[in-house]
């Protein structure tokens, strides 16, 4: 299947909007699913898009850019992989073969953009010192406009050059290469799990890790059900901790509802 010009524009637009949203509104930040699904709709195969989006979502789980660090751009991997899978008919492995390396390389665009922002920032300070406040604000407005290119450019290059290239590459690719990528796809979510555990009080509450594992591995409870059990445990711990401490808290409860 050949992509039309309109399809290529729409796919690039999804990549641009995804990045712009991630750095501004953050309505769909880390939502890799939606990137796969929307791309699937554009290429006429939402089922594949959803499946690839879900796979990538699980792969990226817990891999978060904290405190300004950069992370592999899994959402664009989903966009590229869905496009490649739909256009070449070679399935998800072919999509992964192109999508994953680009997602890894995408980190560099992010780093370059943050360095570029540094130049803007020095300009802004200089303008404020001269008393040109409005000009400083205008320079700040440059940042959100061009950030989306960090995702849009690699996606555009891949969807234009990718499909024909992929078939050529796949012909030469040994079996272990694609099998290895599929295996890696199964293990990579472990990186996210490890990162999550690094942020959580594992030493204090490891027992709940065990509860979740047993419910899923031995009893096959779906994740929503396990989240409900976790919510119940969380509520009990919140209640007992709040009661155990001073009785002075309780007047203002604004934050509890979040």
């Amino acid at each position, binding site marked *: 299947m050949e992509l039309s010009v309109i399809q290529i524009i729409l796919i690039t637009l999804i990549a641009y909007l995804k990045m712009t949203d991630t750095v501004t509104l953050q309505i769909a930040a880390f939502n890799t699913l939606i990137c796969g699904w929307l791309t699937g709709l554009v290429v006429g195969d939402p089922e594949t898009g959803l499946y690839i989006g*879900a796979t990538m979502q699980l792969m990226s789980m817990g891999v978060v850019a904290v405190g300004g660090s950069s992370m592999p751009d899994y959402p664009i991997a989903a966009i590229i992989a869905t496009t490649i899978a739909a256009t070449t008919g070679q399935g998800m492995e072919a999509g992964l073969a192109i999508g994953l390396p680009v997602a890894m390389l995408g980190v560099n665009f992010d780093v370059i953009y943050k360095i570029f922002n540094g130049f803007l920032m020095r300009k802004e300070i200089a303008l404020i010192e001269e008393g040109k406040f409005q000009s400083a604000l205008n320079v700040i407005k440059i940042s959100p406009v061009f950030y989306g290119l960090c995702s849009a450019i690699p996606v555009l290059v891949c969807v234009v050059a990718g499909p024909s290239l992929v078939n050529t590459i796949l012909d030469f690719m040994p079996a272990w290469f694609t099998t290895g990528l599929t295996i890696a796809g199964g293990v990579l979510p472990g990186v996210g799990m490890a990162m999550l555990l690094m942020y959580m009080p594992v030493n204090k509450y490891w027992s709940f890790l065990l509860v979740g594992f047993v419910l899923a591995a031995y009893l096959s409870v779906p994740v929503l059900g396990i*989240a409900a059990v976790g919510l119940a445990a969380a509520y009990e711990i919140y209640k007992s901790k709040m009661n155990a401490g001073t009785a002075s808290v309780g007047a203002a409860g604004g934050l509890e509802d979040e």
Partner: protein
Amino acid sequence: MSKEKVLTKKDLRRAARRWLIGISTFNYETQLAPSAFFSVYPCLRKMYPNDEDLKKSSLNYMRYYNTMPWISPFVIGAALGIEDEGGVESLDAVNDFKVGLMGPLAGIGDTIGWAMIPTIFGSIGASMAMQGNPLGIFLWLAFTIAFLAVRILQYEWGYNMGVNVITKFGKQITVFTEACSVLGLTVVGSLIATVVKLKTGITFTNGDVTMEVQGLIDGVMPQLLPVAAVAIIYFFMAKKKVKMTWMILFIIIASWIGAATGIFTA
């Protein structure tokens, strides 16, 4: 040194909307400072008719600032509350306050906002999507859109509380984060069992009998290899401080070797 407060609810709403410029201005030197300045500029203009004072305050906001963008409005709102009362004399206090609050709040915000919420909504959405159902995407979007209102309102909450923010919510926030961690850990435990996948293809031949090692492992415990994989990854990342990108590359290379030798199968 107190002056009359000039900021209204409308000014704070406007600052909150301007904060949606978000993390796009992130740079390695002052991090989110340009976003903070962009957000509060109309408020500063109103507070300081004098250009020299405005300059001082603006440069104060252009100093290093970084916290999780979803709770940053709370910090900046409170900072505005202090500054609207104290004027230019309070600038050092405002900066100290921001720096003091942004660290702990970033820790909480990153854990809940960036680690926990995408994990919970992502895993629910992904398990629905695997069955061809896109509903999970909208569930997640509905949450983030609803939370947008909270992000906007935080400017007013912070502004009204000012310095009292720390004393009032200190304990509640800690306990709330801890309770959320329990929910998170339970979900992560289930994800290790369902999401991480690793199988071995090693077989032993003893005479006519071929033994599959994977079968033996399954007999010991379900999902033993995925658990071992996560434990090893955790060891390298948490104890040996291996960077995420290197860890990912290492896994891909190990998977290729495993696929080529038959130690691992897809």
